[in-house]
């Protein structure tokens, strides 16, 4: 079968690797761009500025109305009351402005007095300074200081 042998030995066109590579690269870039857009939209939707401080929230009080946002402040010492649905406390800002928070749901493990927290929720009415929280997030600082729970030990080795 000479015709078949001739066709097998005749040179074939080189594979279009560059063109195929280009299309595959374009495909990868498109998928990547889509993934980044999804992540960015999540970040922007949930706001890159994650919260408003107490002072900022009170400054924009009329604008915020009763819409849901995140408010940040420090839990005023001695104001935490455990309620049947969660906890209530007073949140203070750097300029000593205060907002009363009634939060539902169990607070995080580190929730305590004098700690910065972010509360998700809304003001109860367009003019009220009471905040109805649905979630408490603890915003810890970058300062790490050793605790000394066992510094003083009695002769019977109990801790005092």
């Amino acid at each position: 079968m000479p015709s078949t042998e001739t066709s097998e030995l005749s040179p074939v066109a080189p594979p279009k690797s560059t063109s195929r590579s280009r299309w595959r690269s374009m495909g990868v870039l498109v998928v990547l761009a889509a993934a980044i857009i999804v992540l960015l939209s999540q970040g922007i939707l949930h706001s890159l500025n994650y919260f408003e401080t107490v002072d900022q929230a009170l400054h924009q009080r009329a604008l915020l109305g009763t819409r849901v946002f995140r408010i940040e402040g420090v839990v005023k010492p001695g104001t935490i009351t455990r309620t049947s649905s969660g906890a209530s406390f007073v949140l203070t800002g750097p300029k000593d402005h205060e907002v009363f928070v009634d939060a539902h749901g169990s607070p995080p493990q580190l929730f305590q007095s004098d700690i910065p927290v972010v509360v998700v929720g809304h003001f109860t009415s367009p003019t009220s300074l009471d905040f109805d929280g649905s979630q408490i997030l603890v915003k810890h600082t970058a300062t790490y200081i050793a605790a000394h729970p066992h510094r003083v030990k009695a002769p019977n080795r109990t801790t005092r």
Partner: protein
Amino acid sequence: MIKQLSQRLLGPVTLLLLVLTFWLGLWVTPPDRIQGNLVRMLYVHPAVAWVALYVSFGTATIASVLYLWKRTRSGTLDRVAHCAMEVSVVFIVLTLITGSIWGRPTWGVWWAWDARLTSTAILGVLAIGYLALRRANDDPVLRARRSAVFAIVSAINVPIIHFSVQWWKTLHQGATVFTSNRQLLVHGSMAWTLLLSFLGFTLLFFWLLRARYRLEVLREETQRATLDLALEMRQREGAR
């Protein structure tokens, strides 16, 4: 001589430093005043993030820049960039996992769409994208050039991640080791253990990079040998 010695010692020294870090972090250092024993994540998460963002992504970026510069262009640099990026993916994923594990008991949530976390997730996508882009190209020269450009463009995200806690209001804490006015925020033995963890994980990166680089060289050699063998067999068939 020194090079050989350092290569031999890299693995054992890395292991020693990591064991020391975990021993100090788990048993010797005290609990934190506020976080209690949760503070022990401090000896893993920041160091892993440091390697992911600065050491490994930085290595990949520098190697890519040097590859694109005609004077220093070589296959070695492309290989280094590729291997560093692979290790970077591992460390970025570890950063996100360890951050989540730490975030759940401290913040109260596994994940928050704040600027630091979102930009770190984007870096992870970019690093995976770099590897996908490499696989999409058959021509080695084209592949090296395209991925080098992509790595450099992706590196723009690193300073965004670094400064995100200053530029925007985030749930993530501010700078961990030093404040902007160079004040150390971590005290006593906790600080030393933290610095040790940075050293240990950095050496772990170089150990992994070296291992991955050697594997890549072996893979290329095997590929070349297989091709040579196939050509030789083809030639023999033709001679017959």
